[in-house]
């Protein structure tokens, strides 16, 4: 019970930080909104999807996934900064649950995702995005997005706690997430990529997530890679497996790292 309470206190801290520095919330919302508008109007005109509603229908799931993928960087740099400032030491000297700090941080970052996804959804709607999978499926799609962001947040936790220098963390996280989100079906068909990249894109969790969301939002995934493979045929189940795998590896790793964090 007290472990739960400790975690909530940390999550509250996260939220309070947002109210103290509203710019963080502002910029973490503005950037994805800007992406929605840019991609919608820059690429939207030249990519013919041959589907009613046009490019924006395929684009929105892609941008949603990209945005939650950046949770990794957020969690990583947040924890790295706590390390640098000695806050991790203070938390570790308190009689609190050993997982509270990391769980609280990852939950807080996910709550931020809810706000950001909401703002993006509204923007998408305004520029023509119309999910047609039915209310339940759309809801499920967003639940998937939050789940994926949460899983990645644990990779971020591990990166942040392992970092020697907090300035490196942001760079490393972007270096990992940026190609991951582009070597996928998120913004363009993968069929134009060189063969080895196609295989990578096909198994890339970002692709399976995007495909899963497209399915739940009621459209066919036309940006899929080599058809007939397991991940492109079963994006929902593959994405779920990825999330479970990521958590199974990185939750214990991060908690162990936290216990041993030597600052």
């Amino acid at each position, binding site marked *: 019970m007290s472990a739960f309470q400790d975690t909530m*206190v940390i999550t509250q*801290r996260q939220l*309070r930080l947002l109210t*103290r*520095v509203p710019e963080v919330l502002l910029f973490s919302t503005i950037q994805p909104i800007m992406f929605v508008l840019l991609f919608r109007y820059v690429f939207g005109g030249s990519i013919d999807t041959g589907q009613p509603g046009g490019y924006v229908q395929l684009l929105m799931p892609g941008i949603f996934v990209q945005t939650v993928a950046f949770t990794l960087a957020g969690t990583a740099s947040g924890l790295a900064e706590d390390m640098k*400032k*000695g806050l991790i*030491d*203070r938390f570790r000297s308190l009689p609190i649950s050993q997982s509270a700090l990391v769980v609280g941080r990852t939950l807080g970052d996910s709550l931020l995702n809810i706000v950001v996804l909401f703002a993006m959804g509204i923007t998408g709607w305004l520029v023509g995005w119309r999910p047609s999978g039915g209310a339940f499926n759309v809801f499920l799609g967003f639940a998937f997005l939050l789940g994926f962001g949460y899983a990645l947040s644990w990779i971020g936790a591990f990166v942040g706690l392992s970092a020697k220098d907090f300035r490196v963390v942001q760079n490393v996280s972007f270096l990992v997430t940026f190609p991951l989100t582009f070597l996928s079906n998120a913004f363009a068909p993968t069929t134009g990529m060189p063969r080895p990249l196609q295989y990578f894109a096909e198994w890339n969790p970002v692709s399976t997530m995007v495909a899963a969301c497209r399915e739940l939002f009621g459209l066919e995934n036309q940006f899929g890679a080599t058809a007939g493979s397991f991940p492109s045929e079963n994006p929902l189940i593959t994405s779920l497996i990825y999330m479970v795998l990521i958590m199974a590896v990185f939750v214990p790793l991060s908690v162990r790292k936290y216990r041993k964090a030597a600052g």
Partner: protein
Amino acid sequence: MKSVIAEDLVKTYDKGNVKALDHLSLDVEEGTVLSVLGPNGAGKTTTVRILSTLLRPDSGRATVAGIDVIKDPDKVREVIGLSGQYAAVDEILTGYDNLVMFGRLYHLGKKQAVVRANELLERFSLTEAAKRPIKTYSGGMRRRLDLAASLIVKPKVLFLDEPTTGLDPRGRQEMWGVIQELVKGGVTLLLTTQYLEEADQLADEIAVIDNGKVIARGTSDVLKKQVGGERLEVVVESQHVAKTLEIVEKISGHSASLDEGLRLIASPVSTGSAALFEVLKALDAAGIHALDVGLKRPSLDDVFLALTGHVAEEKKAEEEKTSKRVKEKK
């Protein structure tokens, strides 16, 4: 009863190449203050980190308030307070927010946490700044808030790792006042410092450490006797050296040394500034103009010189070189 016992602690870093602690042993009697005194890199912080459960030693034993640090770290965390070298509070949150948050993490109820936060803010003269983010605080205010955070539930043992390093003289004075108040309240305190004066002001007993070992222990009087008291130093024009030497020796009652190159006459004195005044008066009466005059207190370097025969500064200079190199790399 001993509140803190450390026996034979060994800690190495970098695969055994750097020996941070080399069979270090110390103990603190309940309700007293032990100051661990040593230069940078002597092993002070490592000692505190092990005793406060943040670091596991390679070997050795330690108990805090009778609880085994290695076997039962969770129980130890319930009875200690730790305030480190770097003010470990959330910079973006306000002082009040920080204390309430830490209060909740010590499992106080919401109301209790608020009451305790306000009490501590009042006690550490931070009420006015309570609603400001920490990043607007001065160095001294941060340290006080950090200290307040470690006192939320009255700890049985308090660890303060270099509580005044990096503070300006005023901040240091304020911090000393705050710590002295705590000591009056009967807390068991282990304090690390690089400053002999600080150890002198605050501690019942001092353990001098160097290269991960305790090399001397005792009250500050005992250590000071090993080091010697204050020294009076005068610099005069060369034609006045002989006469000045005579005056200084007469007043100090000790033989004085002379550095001919610097024309510096020095002698140990026991009466401090009174002796200084006497010497100045006598020089004036003899028509001698002192170019430079001063009282030198025994410093940590003097303690080190007296105890180990080597100078603490050498180490510092070396470290500065290394940190410079690291900076250059970046």
